[in-house]
């Protein structure tokens, strides 16, 4: 089983200091912080979880932040459920997308990446890392992808779903180009819902945390439409886009609509050669969590089957967050189960091949 969204945390953002270049180490040491000493510089979303967004039982026995203790992560997740590979997504690192200063944002992303490679990947052969970049600085992001993207323990490039514009926009071409060069998927994880990024819902800001969280699909939908319409998958035929923590039940409705509207207005995007749903099936992957919960559990799957989601969904737990999905709670049709819980992620992240690379000591 592969878990495509596991949050490894630092106990304090001060852990990044040794990995920051001097200019920005000074920012982190002396500069203003959103939550006092040890907090991570970002413009937090204005929707504050009234109970905090971590599982209360995930605080390690000797204290510290949930997700910061590898041994406890093994006990609560990796060993307990028999996870073969966990894709680490960090905790707050993707929030660099909310910062106005792209240089500071990219420096923090680089520090996270070096910290993750040095402090987490050596702990456990089951762990793979996400290379976080600041998407508001596409050229700096591309440099970072070329610097570290070839590391055998890196599974993907990671940004937040919150963005200044959707990810198919040619503004981001340097990121797609670099991903193609190093052969990594680009993943967008729920987050970045503040600061310089666009409002996450189109009609203006929601009010409550749960109200906002239920609408987490909205930015994901925008990125799916954008990457397909702008021709990302024609320009980079090997490109893969992964949406993490945006839900899945909306996908059939969106792809049906994209196919219908493309058939009528193909002339707007003459660089496309296939129906939107065909690009999606080959190039887009979605993590299952937080899986929608229909009144009849089995009502979730028929529409997804219609658009070929059995090839697109990948299990994720979101440990140690409050909306964690236990593997047993995800029950796709029996014929899909191996693909959704294991095979799709294994193929996307080339886990067999990377397993061999790790065994070679690279």
């Amino acid at each position: 089983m592969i878990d495509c969204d596991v949050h490894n945390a630092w106990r304090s953002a001060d852990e990044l200091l040794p990995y920051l270049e001097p200019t920005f180490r000074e920012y982190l040491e002396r500069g203003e912080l959103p939550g006092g000493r040890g907090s991570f510089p970002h413009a937090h979303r204005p929707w504050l979880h009234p109970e905090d967004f971590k599982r209360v039982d995930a605080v390690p026995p000797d204290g510290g932040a949930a997700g910061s203790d590898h041994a406890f992560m093994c006990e609560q997740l990796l060993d307990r459920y028999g996870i073969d590979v966990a894709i680490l997504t960090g905790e707050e690192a993707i929030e660099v997308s909310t910062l106005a200063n792209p240089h500071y944002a990219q420096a923090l992303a680089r520090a996270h990446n070096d910290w993750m490679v040095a402090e987490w990947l050596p702990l456990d052969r089951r762990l793979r890392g996400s290379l976080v970049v600041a998407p508001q600085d596409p050229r700096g992001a591309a440099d970072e992808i070329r610097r570290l993207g070839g590391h055998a323990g890196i599974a993907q490039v990671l940004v937040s779903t919150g963005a200044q514009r959707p990810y198919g926009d040619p503004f981001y071409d340097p990121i797609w180009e670099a991903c193609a060069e190093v052969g990594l998927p680009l993943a967008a994880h729920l987050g970045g819902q503040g600061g310089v990024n666009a409002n996450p819902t189109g009609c203006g800001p929601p009010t409550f945390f749960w109200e906002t969280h239920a609408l987490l699909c909205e930015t994901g939908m925008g990125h799916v439409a954008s990457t397909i319409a702008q021709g990302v998958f024609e320009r980079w035929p090997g490109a893969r886009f992964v949406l993490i923590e945006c839900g899945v039940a909306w996908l059939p409705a969106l792809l049906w609509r994209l196919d219908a509207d493309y058939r009528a207005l193909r002339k707007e995007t003459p660089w496309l050669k296939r129906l939107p749903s065909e690009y999606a099936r080959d190039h887009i992957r979605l993590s299952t969590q937080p899986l929608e919960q229909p009144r009849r559990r089995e009502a979730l799957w028929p529409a997804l089957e219609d658009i070929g989601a059995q090839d697109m969904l990948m299990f994720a737990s979101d440990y140690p967050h409050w909306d964690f999905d236990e593997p047993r709670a995800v029950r796709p049709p029996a014929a899909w189960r191996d693909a959704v819980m294991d095979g799709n992620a294994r193929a996307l992240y080339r886990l067999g091949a990377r397993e061999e690379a790790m065994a070679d000591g690279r």
Partner: protein
Amino acid sequence: MGGEPRHVVCAAADLRPGERRIVRVRGRSIGVFNVDGHYYALQNGCPHRGGPLCEGRVGGTTLPTRDQAFAYGQDGRILRCAWHGWEFDIATGRALADPAVSARTYPVAVEDGNILISV
């Protein structure tokens, strides 16, 4: 032409390049088009939702390109359904956005100065 009965649409001189005529033959509504001196006939019912395909706009469209480029072409050869705007190649009936979809076409001939369709 096939074994189906042939029907006179009109005198060829009465359907000039760029013009169309919609006729009813054996209970079917059919659009007959003159595209640069060549005649084509399509069923006036869109394979998408049955809309009046042949009442739609005729024009050109964007040709396949790469990298966000635009090239206009096929002017006068593309029919867009009057309802939802699906594009069809008048000569072949094929939907431009989805090769799996085609509008029904009928054989056309000109004999003794008249346009004939086989329905």
